């Protein structure tokens, strides 16, 4: 078994994790959650498994239960998503490509015994940008149970985030991201990965908390999932992170205003104005993509 890029949240920081993701496409960070948070999270998730249907396709998993809207269903995720290592890694890998990033997806992937391996893929089909290219999303999968090769630990192809679009992985390049409960694997969207097969008699549970560049549309519509009255229950940093904030100069406005104004007491301030911080980011930091449109390859999306 090859040695994985592995860190301890108590002794690393977002930059170090971000640099590992630059190089390998992923980093495993142990001790992202303490025992109490893990217990709280399990208790919050438990009632939602009952009655959940499984997926209808191989890709969604015939023995996998999925649900979203985690900031409401499992409030411990509100703390997880603001973890300094997670945000620091996102600053490192996403901010070269955007003025701000936002939450694009929250979800549980609960693989029950007997689940088979998911097709290997990149989280790339939401935006038609070929590889290699910018990192458009940072994924994080949090181990709510231990992740082992036997119970369906996420399989990854280290380094594949840098590959040409057409290169296919060989079986010996696939490794299982084994990690104890309370860890997270943080990864660039363009690493090739997939859920493993669960050959044990216990479920394998993961929480996914994913970010995307602030100028891209969110996979999970946060404004419909968390409309104004629900968003008001969240801490301000999280309100902004789910999209109640400009994503770029003027972008995401409501009547010319920053959308966060909807969550605040009326200030009496009206008028179209941009945000100097965002203007500066666009002037100095953000990399602009030189692109060319090319025809699609056959059969891009995972099918069954």
């Amino acid at each position, binding site marked *: 078994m090859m040695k994985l890029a592995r860190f301890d949240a108590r002794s690393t920081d977002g930059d170090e994790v971000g640099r590992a993701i630059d190089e390998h496409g992923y980093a495993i960070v142990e001790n992202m959650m303490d025992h109490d948070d893990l217990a709280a999270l399990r208790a919050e998730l438990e009632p939602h498994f009952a009655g959940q249907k499984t997926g*209808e396709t191989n890709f969604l998993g015939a023995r996998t239960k999925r649900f*979203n*809207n985690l900031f409401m269903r499992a409030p411990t995720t509100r703390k997880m998503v603001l973890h300094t290592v997670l945000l620091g890694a996102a600053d490192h890998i996403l901010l070269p490509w955007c003025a701000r990033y936002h939450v694009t997806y929250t979800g549980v992937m609960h693989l029950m015994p007997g689940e088979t391996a998911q097709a290997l893929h990149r989280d790339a089909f939401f935006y038609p940008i070929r590889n290699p*290219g910018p990192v458009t999303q940072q994924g994080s999968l949090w181990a709510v149970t231990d992740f082992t090769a036997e119970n369906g630990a996420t399989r990854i192809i280290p380094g594949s985030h840098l590959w040409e679009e057409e290169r296919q992985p060989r079986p010996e390049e696939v490794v299982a991201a084994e990690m104890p409960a309370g860890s997270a694997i943080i990864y660039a969207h363009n690493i090739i990965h997939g859920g493993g097969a669960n050959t044990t008699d216990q479920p394998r549970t993961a929480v996914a908390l994913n970010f995307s560049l602030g100028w891209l549309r969110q996979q999970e519509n946060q404004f419909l999932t968390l409309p104004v009255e629900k968003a008001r229950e969240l801490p301000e940093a999280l309100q902004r992170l789910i999209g109640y904030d400009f994503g770029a100069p003027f972008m995401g*406005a409501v009547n*010319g205003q920053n959308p966060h104004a909807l969550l605040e007491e009326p200030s009496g301030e*009206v008028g179209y104005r941009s945000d100097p911080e965002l203007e500066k980011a666009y002037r100095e930091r953000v990399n602009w993509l030189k*692109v060319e449109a090319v025809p699609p390859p056959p059969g891009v999306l995972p099918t069954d």
Partner: protein
Amino acid sequence: MPDLNTFPNTASVEEVTASIHEKSYAIVHDVLDTSELACVRDELAPHFAERVGGSDDFTGHKTVRFGALLARVPKVREMVLHPLVHGVAQALLGPSCSNIRLNYTGVMHLEPGEMAQTLHRDSGFYPIQNPCPPLLLATMWAISDFTQENGGTRIIPGSHLWDDKRKPEPEEIIATEMPAGSVLFYIGASFHGGGANKAAAPRTGIALHYALAWLRQEENQYLAVPQDLARTFSPELKALMGYELSTVNSGFVDHQHPRDVLDGVPPEGPRPIGPAELMAADNAINRLHVDRAEAVGRARHDVVAPFDR
């Protein structure tokens, strides 16, 4: 003044689209008739009293602006779906997306004495270098006549094909002139700006922009339009404003189709949300191949046409 690239309202989607690809812009006359114009003006009138204005040289010191037009100006719900206008948006943007989405709605009401606006590209908040495939199509609807004198939109024909280094020259700028009821179309990458209003009366335009559905909206339609109101809209309008997936399995709410959530349809289990046609569309669109990336910044130019000095 050069001849403007103008079409009658009998023009086809294909000819208007082809012309925009070549010249950056096109003007179509008589998209709204007299009674429709009167209706729009009546619906706009109460909102001018709110006097939400710009705050700097870019947003304008003598420009009244307001958005959320799907909520505030009922006629706009028909305008965004006008067969020619919506058809051109679909034809122009369709090769790079499975769906198009309404990106922005706004009134731009230039009062006498307003100065010429900085030339800019409306797609400039997407960090993609020019030239590039169309990301955004803007339409500017003339609610009053647009003239050179009253600040009719300034535009540089062909500039959507320029790279980011090329700077506009003053004599390359033309003024959009069109009677009320006309529509100016331009690709989001075209250099343009509001003109100086040297006339005695205001110049009123309604900007309605469309973009690739996988990009974030400039104006958040989910927050700008109350859900109780959006629920009453036609299926086509719901889809256009964003109660539609951008690709299979993207744009959902708790793994349900966003339109079903709006309409209160009971949830089903996790399945690929989106019909087979959407997956076929996803598989057929062009991909963006990235050659390189660098921090080149956003192009804006304080270049003023001779007639605006």
